[in-house]
């Protein structure tokens, strides 16, 4: 059930079309030049959006990063001074490490949990669609709300977690979840995983349901165990989905600053500082726009590789 959008079927080859239709088509279609002109006219709004709201800002980010520009004042060109300052900064390197840990652990956990959930929801069970709907809810609510809600759960004195642990008798001390340098990163990642797992479940489940049942039945008859079926049928069939989902999610996880902004503000002692948040604090907290742009661009080379790979994948799937 791949949603019937296969371009190979749906965008029929010219040669396959019967000649009379083809002749009519040629007679009817505007001349090539007219067609191109119409195409550019139709694409104009979308192109303006791309150029004006993404391409131009991106180029101006590069230019900004070469300036010393406070908010609300004209900038002064300083060459690579911002980058030089950045690469001498201890916080910068800590941010690099944090971002890598944060993204790698977050994405791995989401992957494992998402796959587990997809496999479970793929089993036959009554009310499965109700469970599916409930499990997807974290993904549908705004990230800020999720983050605020969890901040309140983690609250030292009155939050749910401490309240609950003390009530059940698991601890007698108050635990400062978000202020403890050893716990803070783990807590932030937990929230990231809570919010992001449904996306994985959703894509993996769609992939699982596209696998023909006959493959499993045949394997069953051959006496293959459930584990072997998983390794030899399920995993190879889901490989492309795994890759695309992980790549998309890596970009989204690594660049989302809302969790850190609301839960810890990068603290305690920069333990949870990650790139997008550092850029935010530098540009708007310290009001150094140029330096802020340099921070976010310093992180871009890693991202751009992913973006290019992913663009190619996403297009090869819909392009003719």
């Amino acid at each position: 059930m791949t949603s019937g959008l296969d371009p190979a079927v749906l965008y029929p080859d010219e040669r396959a079309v019967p000649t009379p239709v083809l002749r009519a088509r040629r007679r009817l279609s505007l001349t090539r030049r007219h067609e191109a002109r119409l195409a550019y006219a139709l694409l104009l709004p979308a192109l303006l959006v791309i150029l004006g709201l993404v391409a131009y800002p991106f180029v101006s980010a590069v230019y900004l990063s070469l300036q010393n520009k406070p908010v609300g004042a004209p900038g002064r060109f300083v060459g690579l001074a911002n980058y030089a300052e950045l690469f001498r900064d201890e916080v910068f390197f800590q941010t690099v490490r944090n971002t890598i840990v944060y993204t790698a652990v977050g994405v791995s956990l989401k992957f494992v949990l998402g796959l587990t959930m997809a496999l479970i929801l793929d089993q036959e069970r009554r009310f499965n669609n109700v469970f599916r709907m409930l499990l997807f809810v974290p993904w549908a609510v705004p990230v800020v709300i999720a983050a605020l809600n969890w901040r309140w759960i983690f609250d030292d004195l009155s939050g749910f977690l401490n309240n609950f642990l003390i009530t059940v008798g698991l601890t007698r001390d108050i635990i400062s979840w978000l202020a403890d340098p050893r716990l803070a990163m783990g807590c932030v990642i937990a929230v990231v995983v809570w919010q992001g797992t449904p996306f994985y479940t959703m894509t993996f489940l769609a992939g699982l349901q596209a696998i023909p049942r006959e493959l499993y039945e045949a394997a069953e008859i051959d006496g293959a165990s459930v584990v072997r079926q998983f390794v030899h049928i399920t995993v190879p069939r889901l490989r492309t989905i795994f890759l695309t989902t992980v790549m998309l999610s890596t970009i989204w996880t690594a660049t989302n600053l809302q969790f850190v902004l609301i839960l810890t503000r990068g603290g305690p002692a920069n333990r949870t500082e990650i790139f997008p948040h550092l850029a935010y604090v530098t540009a708007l907290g310290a009001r150094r726009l140029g330096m802020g742009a340099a921070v976010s661009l310093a992180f871009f080379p890693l991202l751009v590789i992913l973006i290019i790979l992913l663009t190619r994948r996403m297009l090869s799937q819909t392009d003719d």
Partner: protein
Amino acid sequence: MPRTTSGTRLLFRWIGNGLLLVMLVWTLVPFYWMMATSLKADQEIYGFEATLVPHHPTLAAYVRLFQQTPFMKYVRNSTIIAVSTTAVSLVFGCLGAYALARLRFRGRRLIARGLVFTYLVPPSLLFIPLFAMMSALSLVDTHQGLILAYLGFTVPFCTWLLMGYFRSVPLELEEAALVDGCTRLGALIRVVLPMSLPALAVVAFFSFTQAWNEFLYANVFVNSVEVRTITTGLTLFIVEDVFFWGPMMGAAFLSALPPLVVYLVFQRWVVKGLTLGAVKG
């Protein structure tokens, strides 16, 4: 042999049920806490009296929310911005997608590539130059500025998704319309669009929720209460490190409803549409 297989099947089934239960608890407890908090009086929220279940449920937090905070103003702003973003993205997306799916011209591949690439460039990279741009154009603190910023990610996605779907509409139907004297635009509106309703639903859902849920741009480009959206309005319940959790959780619950309702209504198509890129191939 078959006996052991069905034995392991049964085992996996029960492991599955157990894990499902754990995941449901993990997923839903935060929502429980949100709602429970919004129904408590302050004594039950804070301090030693704090309770896990509201003993004396009250709507006081909601009353405070509606009477003493600009909550309704935020809702209005979010609605204006999300609805406008959705409408504009739909129109731009349909036009562009039709050209990419059906017309032949130079640069078609390049533009398609540009769209996907653009969609993947994260907002956290663009907000600083966009902020400088908005200030220069005096679009800071306006609905238009925020809508414009949102189009930067909704339009590329909508165009890309619709492009894939438009190709699935049989060419013959459109040719019949063209034979009957329809223009290209007429064919788009009368033939292609009615057949693409599921894709339009996905795209509308996506634009609306993205605009409604967005936080970073809304936080950076807007300062005044008159334009502030709900996601950034929520954080104003934190005053000097003091959190007003009751009204805030009430507001959080209420403002999560619109995207949630839209999701429940559209979910059949959404799951299909959003996974489209991942599932195929």
